[in-house]
């Protein structure tokens, strides 16, 4: 019984001094290290979240800007398209009109030529028929009288 008390007393002292103390110190140190790691991780996490928010914002900004650019480009393109189409239409119109003018001019020229030839032929024919020559001035007057009854403009217009 005395030995038990002595042995256990010594064991208690030895364990407290050399086993539990150092072990508790290691456990406390580890706990401190873990706490430190957690704090550090939390801080990193907060930083990461802030960065993420920043990046999200800048990405959203970039997206909006890109949309703006695209819209502007689209508008410019459409304007250009309308301009080109308008120019082309105007050009075509001009060409058509010049073509029409030319046709009318040619038609008039042709008619004038026909009129001249008809007058000459008529003078010739009438001379042959009347057996006498009438002056050219008379003929021209007669032809003009006859032709004034024909509407050449209408003929020309109808040909167009």
């Amino acid at each position, binding site marked *: 019984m005395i030995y038990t008390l002595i*042995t256990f007393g010594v*064991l208690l002292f030895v364990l407290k001094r050399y*086993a*539990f103390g150092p072990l508790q110190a290691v*456990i406390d140190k580890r706990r401190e290290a873990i706490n430190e790691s957690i704090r550090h991780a939390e801080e990193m996490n907060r930083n990461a979240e802030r960065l993420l928010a920043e990046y999200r914002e800048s990405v959203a900004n970039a997206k909006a800007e890109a949309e703006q650019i695209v819209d502007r480009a689209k508008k410019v393109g459409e304007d250009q398209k309308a301009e080109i189409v308008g120019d082309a239409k105007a050009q075509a119109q001009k060409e058509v009109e010049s073509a029409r003018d030319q046709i009318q001019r040619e038609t008039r020229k042709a008619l004038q030529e026909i009129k001249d030839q008809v007058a000459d032929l008529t003078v010739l024919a009438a001379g042959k028929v009347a057996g006498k020559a009438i002056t050219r001035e008379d003929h021209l007057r007669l032809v003009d009288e006859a032709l004034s009854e024909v509407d050449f403009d209408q003929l020309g217009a109808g040909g167009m």
Partner: protein
Amino acid sequence: MSQLNPADEFTDATKPLSIAGHSLEFHIGALDMSISKAVVYLWIGAIITALICIGISKAARMLPDRKQTAFEGLYEYVRDTLVGAVMPAGAAVTWFPYIASLFLFILISNIIGLIPLPFNLAEGFHDIPEFKTYAATANINVTIALAAITFVATHYSGIKANGPIGYFKGWAPATAPPVLKQVLLVLHGISEIFRLVSLSVRLFANLAAGHLVLLVFYAMILMIQSWALSVLIAPLELGVVVVSLFEIFVALIQAYIFAILSAVYIGGAIHQEH
């Protein structure tokens, strides 16, 4: 061949040992300080407990290996569950080393009790030592000494925390009628004494009974004298194995019970609830 008497194992254990003819019988005044097998087992238990605990603590690293994790698990279990749950926080810090030492010492002593060790070198068969099992905690002297430490610690910490008058007043409910109070005070005093007895006898009896059962199995094997009965050897050996396995469980549970009851008694004395 002398007849094996299981009960002898326990009485022999307290006899002084002798080394090379020199008896290790000592007396200091009236005190018997002889070194017996029981004392040697006590020392083996204490030394192995100290070596295991110091070895693991010295090797403790920030990043624990498997051994350290297991020991820290046990350490934190004792600190938080065994001690922390039944004591106020301040007292838990003070009393943790005691409860933990108690738990580990009893546990390791119980386990050592299951390992056959060579003793009685001179009496062995043809100088081959007899391997026998014995547990320091299967000795009433050891368990009563440990229980006495808890007993003293309980009342010391109770008086320290509540003052001598307050502590003994707390033994009887404050609401009880004065006549009944004195009876309750006496009853509580008796119950305190019986805690000492029950704490020590529970551990001693469980360990002693386990060893006795094992020894009875061995004795029955040795009693077999005829070939016809030799068929019983295998079942008896199986019985030894089964009881040994059960004894491992008993070793753990008894260490746990002794430690947690010590913690509960001390915690209850500090924080009286009536």
